[in-house]
């Protein structure tokens, strides 16, 4: 009986003593909550184009942090953003990277009626033009979000891959040794 009491008392003493120390430490070394969603939002292009299937860039960031979406889900961001997010969150990227090819909107002159619908819609101001005048696309600013193509009444806008020039050409990786 006495032995049992000693055992219980001593273990209780150890436990409560250590608990006290840990309790103090928990206050002393407290850490704030998860800031990763904000960090991921800052990395995304902020175009809120919706190509990822989430409500805007903030929604995509939440999904990526929660693990519901791949960092490669952002077509305008492409490889750069995917790699940056993956590295930041410590996620391994699959081989699906090469499928994410950047595209831009191309307006076919013959079909454009200058209705300015696309011009008003473009989230990144990449379409230049005025009422009843031929519209043009500022390729450097186009995210390829496809919103203009959906709204174009004459179907003059198509999404096309960026053409390769000697300046943008990348030497292919050598084939694997068999």
């Amino acid at each position, binding site marked *: 009986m006495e032995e049992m009491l000693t055992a219980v008392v001593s273990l209780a003493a150890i436990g409560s003593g250590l608990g006290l120390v840990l309790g103090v430490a928990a206050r002393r070394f407290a850490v704030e909550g998860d800031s990763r969603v904000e960090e991921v939002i800052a990395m995304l*292009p*902020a*175009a*809120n184009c919706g190509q990822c299937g989430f409500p805007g860039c903030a929604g995509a960031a939440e999904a990526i942090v929660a693990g519901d979406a791949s960092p490669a889900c952002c077509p*305008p*961001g*492409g*490889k*750069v*953003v995917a*790699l940056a997010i993956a*590295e930041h969150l410590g996620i391994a990227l699959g081989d699906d990277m090469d499928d994410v090819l*950047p595209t831009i909107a191309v307006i076919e002159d013959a079909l454009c009626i200058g209705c300015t619908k696309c011009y008003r819609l473009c*989230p*990144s*101001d*990449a379409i230049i033009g005025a009422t009843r005048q031929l519209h043009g696309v500022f390729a*450097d*600013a*186009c*995210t390829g979000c496809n919103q203009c193509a959906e709204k174009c009444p004459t179907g003059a806008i198509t999404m096309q891959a960026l053409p*390769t*020039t*000697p300046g*943008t*050409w*990348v*030497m*292919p*990786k*050598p084939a*694997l*040794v*068999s």
Partner: protein
Amino acid sequence: MAHIVIPPIRRLLARWGVHPDARKYPAAGLASLDAGLPPQLVVSLSQQAGAPARPVVRVGDHVLRGALLAEASGAVSAPLHAPTSGTVIAIGDAPMAHPSGLPGAAITLRPDGLDQWGERIGHPYPITLSPEEIAGRVSAAGIVGMGGAAFPSALKLSLGKRSNIDTVILNGSECEPYLSCDDRLMQECAADIIEGARLILRATGATRLLVGIEDNKPEAINAMKIAAHPYPEVSVIRMPSRYPMGSERQLIHTLTGIEPPAGGRSADVGVVAHNVGTALAVYRALRHGEPLTERLVTVAGGAVTSPRNLRVRIGTPLSWLFAQCGGLRSVPARLVVGGPMMGVGVSDVDIPVGKGTSGVLALTPAEVGEREPAACIRCGSCVTACPVGLMPLEMAARINANELGKAEDIGLGDCLTCGACGFVCPSRIPLVQYFAHARGELRARDRDRQRLERVRQLTEARAERIERAAREKAEMHARRKAERAAAAEAQARAKEKAETEENPA
């Protein structure tokens, strides 16, 4: 009197680099010939480092030799001049020497056969010109580095004021196998080269000129020594033959003992290096007023019937050069523009010669040594060969595993892409291709990043604009409402007042 300097033995015994078979003969032993005028000349707009030149002629224009075809655009660029007299027949995409095989913008000229010079304004004693004047004329003559990099030379000349250059190096090492155009130039025009180099010396304000020549070119060393004899500031230095001795940084280290800091320019240590061909072009531009319209090109390789050095107009297609050398005697395994170590492998014989083209090679399968790549056995040959002290096998393994960032961490950015590692690799692993791929990919990512940043700014600006418009609208709405309310109240009050006035107590 020029003195002869021998670099310290420690530097000569350094273990970097490789010793490929020189294969410079028979071309190196034969006097250079004029290649004549081909039926068409294609002057590529982006044959110099930096921005492409901007055309100033139109299709149909008739031009004389030396006339301006395109002007420099931007800080790093160079103008282009008509290589002969003739008619501009096209401005647009044409084949060019690029590993991708993609075409680039060019001006196509049909020679009229008269080869008539336009106005040439030379100077009888160019050495009396001011440094600024020299740099200006070199810039106007469209002179670029003729060793292969094609960097606009005038930019290097005007560095002197800012960087306090004290040494000019004349690069006569010509360490690439097969190539002998610099060798021939030094043998045939040594005096003019030295004059040109002295003009460079004057333009940069430097006080000594070191001419570095590899010891496998004894005739060139002799010729240059004789030409340099009257000038005490010129030293001709015999260097060991080793690839890549002609790389600017390795050359500076061998000749001066200074190790230029990584990431910086050679001017930071007070040195600039110019190719011997550049010096000759500088002399011709200043003495005779001739812009850069021709250069010496080595045409060689096992598939060429009679290899030779040819004086070639800029824009001459490769097929014309081969024809001048007796044609091809077998189907080449590879056509190379430049040297075999760093040149561009091409497949089109219509590709034109540019200002930086030092050689045109048609190589047989045996010379190329084409074998299927095998597994890396980690022999370390590439580590020993690397002139920069990198571990190519480790870099390639990381790039192969798509870990480009890690490859960068261990020195991808310091790689010269000189090809020494790929040359010695017993497993024939295309190391340089790995590095070129990784660099291209990293550059592409950089571009994408910048583009995204721009898009982000535009998007934010738009969002802000819309928000501001909405706010202004709301404010205006509120103001109107307030005004209306105020007006109504005033009216009501007036009415009330009127009523009170009407019914005074």
